[in-house]
């Protein structure tokens, strides 16, 4: 099972000091966080893609390329790449390039964006959101899977004899996750292709996550990719830890109360009861995270949101130390315990390469 972190890349004032980091500070902090993730033994770093303030990561492959050069093992991913408003040709090119530079340590997660205006900003119609996700991804697949593509669709200029370069490393395209919170159409799309489905459950109650994941698993099996239990599932999580849980609550409360997404709403106590958010000791984080399996089944990837709401970099790095040293080793062991042998691990470049070689031998 893979463990990692995902960042939204928000520039948010620290509510305890009133200080807002500069964009440059935030961008450098995101890199420092990624490097820390590798240092403490996490598997994945994923960055969001946004095109509006207060967010900085508009250009994920630039950032991931830089991180790739400074890491050895970390898998670089996105949370998410906008399949609706980016040109699929550019996604195919950018991520194949990144794949070569990072020696295959790349996958990506498709999403549809966090704000309505991003569609018109890129000349798209929000009412076509799902259709854009469907058609653009169908083209992206062909650009990676076929060397020469003739293509005509509803949303993009046609292609005649087009080859997307560089070709994917070893002819194995990056593994794709599809992220969605509430659109069953996206779970259906992930299932159709046998791709991964990431449910960003961090602001949602367990029964909602359960319904979405179950639906994806059922459709994954329907399309003949394996049993429902073999579907590739990723989940989010959100934690803040201190040795004593009271200290964690005291320190995190101002960040919670003023957080851009859920601040000024329900209490920290209500929210932790209803969603995956855990504010407490490492042991409490372990218990809560293990409970995800009860409603999502054995899954492949767990990403934590650690660096939002204005938390200072120093605090985030301390959190990552605790995550890497005290939490993830226990989770690895516990999640492996009782996991059926036929439930696959999250696909990596090596595993996809091996699978392609097996297929060739059979053919």
């Amino acid at each position, binding site marked *: 099972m893979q463990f990692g972190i995902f960042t939204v890349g928000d520039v948010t004032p620290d509510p305890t000091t009133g200080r807002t980091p500069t964009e440059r500070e935030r961008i450098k902090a995101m890199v420092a966080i990624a490097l820390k993730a590798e240092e403490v033994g996490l598997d994945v770093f994923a960055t969001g893609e946004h095109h509006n303030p207060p967010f900085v990561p508009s250009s994920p492959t630039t950032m991931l390329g830089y991180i790739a050069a400074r890491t050895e093992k970390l898998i670089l991913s996105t949370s998410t790449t906008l399949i609706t408003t980016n040109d699929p040709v550019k996604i195919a090119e950018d991520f194949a390039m990144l794949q070569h530079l990072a020696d295959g340590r790349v996958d990506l997660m498709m999403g549809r964006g966090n704000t309505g205006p991003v569609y018109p900003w890129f000349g798209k119609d929000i009412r076509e959101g*799902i*259709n854009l996700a*469907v*058609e653009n991804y*169908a083209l992206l697949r062909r650009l990676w899977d076929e060397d020469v593509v003739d293509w005509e*669709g*509803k949303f993009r200029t046609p292609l005649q004899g087009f080859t997307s370069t560089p070709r994917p490393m070893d002819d194995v395209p990056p593994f794709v996750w599809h992220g969605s919170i509430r659109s*069953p*159409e996206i779970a*259906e*799309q992930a*299932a*159709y292709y046998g791709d991964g489905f990431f449910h960003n459950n961090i*602001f*949602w*109650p367990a029964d*909602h996550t359960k319904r979405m994941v179950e*639906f994806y698993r059922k459709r994954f099996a329907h*399309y003949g990719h394996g049993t429902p239990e073999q579907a590739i599932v990723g989940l989010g999580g959100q934690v803040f830890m201190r040795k004593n849980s009271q200290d964690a609550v005291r320190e995190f409360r101002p960040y919670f109360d003023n957080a851009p*997404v*859920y*601040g*000024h*709403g*329900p209490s920290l106590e*209500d*929210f932790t009861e*209803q*969603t995956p958010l855990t504010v407490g000791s490492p042991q409490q984080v372990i218990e809560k995270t293990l409970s995800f399996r009860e409603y999502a089944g054995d899954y492949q990837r767990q990403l934590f949101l650690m660096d939002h709401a204005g938390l200072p970099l120093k605090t985030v790095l301390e959190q990552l130390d605790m995550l890497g040293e005290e939490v993830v080793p226990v989770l690895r062991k516990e999640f492996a315990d009782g996991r059926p042998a036929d439930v696959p691990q999250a696909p990596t470049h090596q595993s996809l390469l091996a699978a392609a070689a097996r297929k060739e031998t059979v053919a």
Partner: protein
Amino acid sequence: MKLVVVSAGLSVPSSTRLLADRLAAAVDRHTPVDVRVVELRELAVEIAHMFTNGFAGKALAAAQDAVAGADGLIVVTPVFSASYSGLFKSFFDVLDKDALAGKPVLIAATGGTARHSLVLDHALRPLFAYLRAVVVPTGVYAASEDWGAEGLAERTERAAGELAALMPLGVRAGEPDIVPFAEQLAALQR
């Protein structure tokens, strides 16, 4: 059949709830129904939280499920500032946009004066038309003076009869319909 009554009255006792109960009892006389009353006052905090965090708390989620699963609805609001109350509107603002599609709805309102009676046709009826509900022709408005006058009982009876007649034909929410992916893709290539 399942009848859900949504009442936005705030005081206890409330004339809004009183009207709601009389309408529900009248429907039950036409056709036997299981009645569930949703008092929005009890859900006010969870409704506000759903605006800020995007998901329903336990009690609100249960109310939303009841509404979506009902064969018919009676909705009753007090008149505030010449319209439905903000709490009443907020409940429908955070409801799934398809939850009322095809569902028979009886609209009703209460107020201190009969001068606001057109709130039914100028505020409630367009709201439920937007939500694609089937609004019964007779709406029931009760001003304070109506509780001591003739006419309210007849309007209640007529509206209830209309709702009872439509309820067996209404649409109840079930599993979401998903277009199989190949069809979705093919539709784009046409």
